[in-house]
């Protein structure tokens, strides 16, 4: 039986507790949370030890692992302490406030045989898992272009009352929403090399961004965009939409279904030429215990299995999450530089002054993007 401690008991902590409390190999021994009200409730209704201070909890209980669902600004300290006490760690996303912090966490784990996982739950969604498999099997040929979008109706008016509206605590659309959208890109296509044309914009919030857009460029010629908006009332629940274009087809996916378009006549895994739609109902597998979505259970059961099987190479490990932290900070840096091109018509005027357009210049430009 693995002994678990929880640090942070807000919305995500509660969900994780419900899922793990019913796990046959897990005993949740203690919960640390800064809210006195929450601790009072927990002490009254649950058979767990409660703490204000997570350090005391870790020192007092001989835990096997911790589940960390505190605001992001505390992650570096809390996770470091857990690693130093040789605990396996499941931490909510994003991993840390900066890529420097998250890199230190990766280094701190070093060669310790500790399972480390970050709550990028889309990696456990069966549609996105299937899309990754298809992309890597070459189903749509050589990948050229993509878009990764995430929309939700999370912030529909100005508010400053929780950590989500404060950048210094890890709030804002970038950390909360875009992190998922970017992680999905890293999961499906790997880490980009450059970012360009990034824009962070507020719609309602006074201290954080409500929208993030950017262009991601890979060394192998893939490029694509992200478009993230957490103030979009048209979505009942937060939604991710991924479109990937390849030389032989295209895939459009969300959490519930994907569509694949194949150019060729060759049947591929039962798909025919043209559009093929696959709904999650056709290939989803049930889970041990369902709360909020299959993927939430699947990610935690995967984490527990990794501990039991001493498997520290994790599909959503710290080193993966570090890549997303790097991307987020690069997008912010790109936006701060605000390098952009003013619309002027100068290029066209120069290149078409003679009778022929300047083809050499075009070729150079296309090649640069393609490289």
């Amino acid at each position, binding site marked *: 039986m693995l002994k678990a401690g929880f640090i942070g008991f807000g919305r995500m902590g*509660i969900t994780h507790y419900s899922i793990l409390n019913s796990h046959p190999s897990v005993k949740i021994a203690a919960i640390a949370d800064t809210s006195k*009200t929450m601790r009072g409730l927990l002490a009254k209704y649950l058979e767990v030890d409660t703490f204000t201070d997570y350090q005391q909890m870790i020192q007092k209980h001989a835990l096997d692992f911790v589940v960390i669902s505190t605001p992001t600004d505390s992650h570096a300290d809390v996770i470091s302490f857990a690693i130093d006490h040789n605990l396996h760690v499941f931490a909510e996303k994003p991993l840390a406030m900066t890529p420097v912090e998250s890199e230190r966490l990766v280094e701190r784990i070093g060669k310790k045989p500790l399972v480390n996982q970050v709550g990028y739950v889309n990696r456990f969604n069966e549609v996105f898992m299937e899309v990754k498999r298809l992309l890597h099997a070459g189903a749509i040929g050589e990948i050229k272009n993509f878009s990764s979008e995430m929309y939700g109706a999370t912030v529909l008016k100005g508010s400053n009352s929780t950590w989500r509206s404060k950048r210094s605590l890890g709030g804002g659309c970038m950390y909360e929403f875009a992190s998922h959208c970017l992680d999905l890109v890293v999961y499906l296509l790997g880490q980009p090399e450059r970012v360009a044309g990034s824009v962070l914009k507020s719609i309602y919030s006074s201290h954080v961004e409500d929208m993030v857009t950017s262009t991601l460029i890979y060394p192998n010629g893939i490029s694509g965009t992200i478009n993230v908006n957490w103030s979009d009332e048209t979505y*009942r629940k937060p939604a991710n939409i991924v479109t990937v274009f390849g030389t032989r087809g295209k895939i459009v996916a969300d959490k*519930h279904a994907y569509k694949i378009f194949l150019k060729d006549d060759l049947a591929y895994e039962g798909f025919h030429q043209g559009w093929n739609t696959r709904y*999650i109902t056709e290939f989803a597998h*049930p889970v041990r215990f369902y709360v909020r979505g299959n993927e939430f259970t699947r990610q935690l059961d995967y984490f527990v299995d990794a501990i039991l099987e001493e498997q520290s190479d994790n599909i959503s490990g710290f080193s993966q999450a570090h890549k997303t932290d790097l991307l987020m900070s690069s997008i912010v840096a790109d936006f701060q530089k605000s390098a952009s091109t003013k619309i002027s018509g100068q290029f066209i005027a120069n290149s078409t002054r003679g009778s022929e357009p300047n083809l050499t210049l075009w070729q150079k430009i296309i090649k640069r993007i393609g490289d």
Partner: protein
Amino acid sequence: MLDRVIFGDNQFFGINHMSEEKAQALSEKFKDLQSITYVIDIAYDCGIRAFMLNSHEKSREICDHFRRNPTRYNDLVLYPSIPYAHKYANSVSEKGIFGTLKDTILADNTFADVTSLISKGGSVLFERDMIKVMQMLVDIEMKIFRDLNIKVLFLQNIVTDLMLGFGVKDVFIEFAKHLKEAHGIEPGFVTMNMPKLVDFLLDCGIDNPVVCSAINKAGYFMNPDQASYENALKEKPFRPIAMSILASGAVKPEEAVAYINRQPTIKSVVFGASSRQHIQHTKDLIEGLDH
């Protein structure tokens, strides 16, 4: 006696578990009260009298419409479900969990005796008596359905399953007791984990509980697996209501009903549709179970 056929409400709120595109199309189709009551009336004309209705904001208008037309809907039977969790989700992001609970209770004028306690001490009540808080929230949610004929009031799966994971029996026992004693209404539970929930409710001493869960040929939304569902249906003393029998469209109505037919303890089926042809056809198929 539960109604054999209960008309589902997901489509009215733009909910579709299979496709976001379909969900958006539904929310456009059911953009106003008229488009919703039009379909309810079709179902009514097909002979359906039992309707599920979630405490979604839109349901206020729907229930007002029922109350305004008592002759038309005099034998209407409601199977409401509470809460509409997404209504609270954004507020939780903005104000936190306790902030949301506090504001929800303060916004209601029913609880003069406790509101001063909450506004003064803030959190005292939450620590001292979460059961009382739960009862107040139930009463607030139920106001939408006032004066209508309620057969069973369901706790939505997002809350049922979250609390099932916590395993706090008092919450379930007191919820059931509150509905029966304060409102004279039968409690029901919607779940995505039917076998586990049924065992738990029986352990809580809730006799012959009404449990609504997905039961379909595709095994969709049946956790941990279809076989455990079939066993529970065969062996446990509870009143099962089947929903998602079409698995959001993955199973054809004939096959769906044939599968339900093989589980003889299922007495009641929830289904949603929006065209007259589909409603009549599916209803006839389900009622064919009797023959």
